[in-house]
């Protein structure tokens, strides 16, 4: 698994929380909203999305309830909890700082690393 893939996978809970901050959604809608907001950059398979959602529910970051009219298939709708909102806020700040520092360190002299002399 590439490093970037690991980073993307590790940011899944935060991405899901940011989607749910806009309002409760079921799993399919979370997937679509994430794809739309990131213009296709972030996509998740069900194998990543649903275990992540269930773990987040166990951790108290989201809660769920079943919704559905009689005679139709029920949908499990997730919503963000106050603990989830707190995690989202702190996570956004951490990632912002991380990204700033990363680009500052990578950018350095402004030249790509391989062309910089190691004097």
């Amino acid at each position, binding site marked *: 698994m590439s490093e970037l893939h690991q980073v993307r996978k590790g940011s899944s809970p935060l991405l899901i929380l940011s989607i749910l901050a806009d309002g409760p959604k*079921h*799993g*399919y*809608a979370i*997937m*679509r909203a994430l794809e739309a907001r990131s213009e296709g950059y972030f*996509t998740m*398979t*069900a*194998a*990543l999305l*649903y*275990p992540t959602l*269930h*773990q987040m529910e*166990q951790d108290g970051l989201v809660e769920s309830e079943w919704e559905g009219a009689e005679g139709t*298939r*029920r*949908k*499990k709708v997730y919503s963000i909890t106050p603990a989830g909102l707190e995690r989202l806020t702190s996570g956004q700040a951490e990632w912002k700082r991380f990204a700033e520092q990363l680009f500052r360190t990578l950018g350095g002299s402004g030249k790509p690393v391989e062309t910089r002399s190691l004097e």
Partner: protein
Amino acid sequence: MNAEEYLTQLRLQIKDFSPQEQAELIEEIASHIETGENDPRLGPDPTDRANRLQAELGSPNDLGRGLRGVHRPNRWVDYLLVAIPSLLVIPLMPLVIVTVAKLTKIDLLSGMESSFSWSYFRVYIAFYSVLMILCVRKRSVSTLLYWLPTTILSIVALLLREGRLPWNPTGVEPGAPLETSFWLVALLALSIWLIKLLRQHRNEPMLVVLAVLPLLIAVANLVSGITERRLQGEQIEYINFTLGWFGLHQIAAFLWPALFYLPRQRAVRWLGLLTFTLPYLIYYTWPFRAHPLVLSLYILPVVMIIYVAARDLRVTQKPLYGR
């Protein structure tokens, strides 16, 4: 792979979950599939949508593995949290108590019976409390639902032994009221916690049976003890076999958690719970064969396990996706 095949594969991956958990997980994924199949954003025609959906769903094995990682982690930790204390620590506790008394020069020998049993119950309750804290930290409900009833029973045994309950079968002088109040409050708090956990997990019959078993066995032991005292001159002839009660109990203490916590197959886990009752069944039913109440109290847990297991393992043939 169509929706029915996908969900059937997924169900195989989560077959060790409770029927309620399986039904809810399958329903959640089925609704995902249904929504996707009807979503024009996935493509103009049904075949395009089905192909895109299939790619997004990924492998049912991967999904099942992910769900097991969330809902069934730490099987070995659970096993060790029960087996190690049961096999190693608890049987050695009396030795530890006596050794500590010798080292600290506390005189357990004069009035040994009362001093020793005073320490005995309290040390065990303290130890069980540490185990419960570990279970909570490890988020292991299945081990908490073993140690919590065990702790409750130890407190009840302490209250009975020290004459701290209105019904005082031992005839012992009651202990100090302040300490009695402490134990009663602890008993109440732990009982409320147990009831709350049982309500929360009422859809997982295995956990409910696990929590109830020690309580049923304790009632059976209490009634058999009272029956034996009331018989006075008549001896209850326990079967003498090589291992003895201790050996039998230790084998079961190793075996039942191994069968209950480690495997994935529900049938094997039910067998683990049955193994829990075996020492009592083997040791007490023959000697008390002429006493139907005692006999039925020892057989009741076995009947309960078989009945609940049979219902739990009943296979449903309904299609998973079609309605």
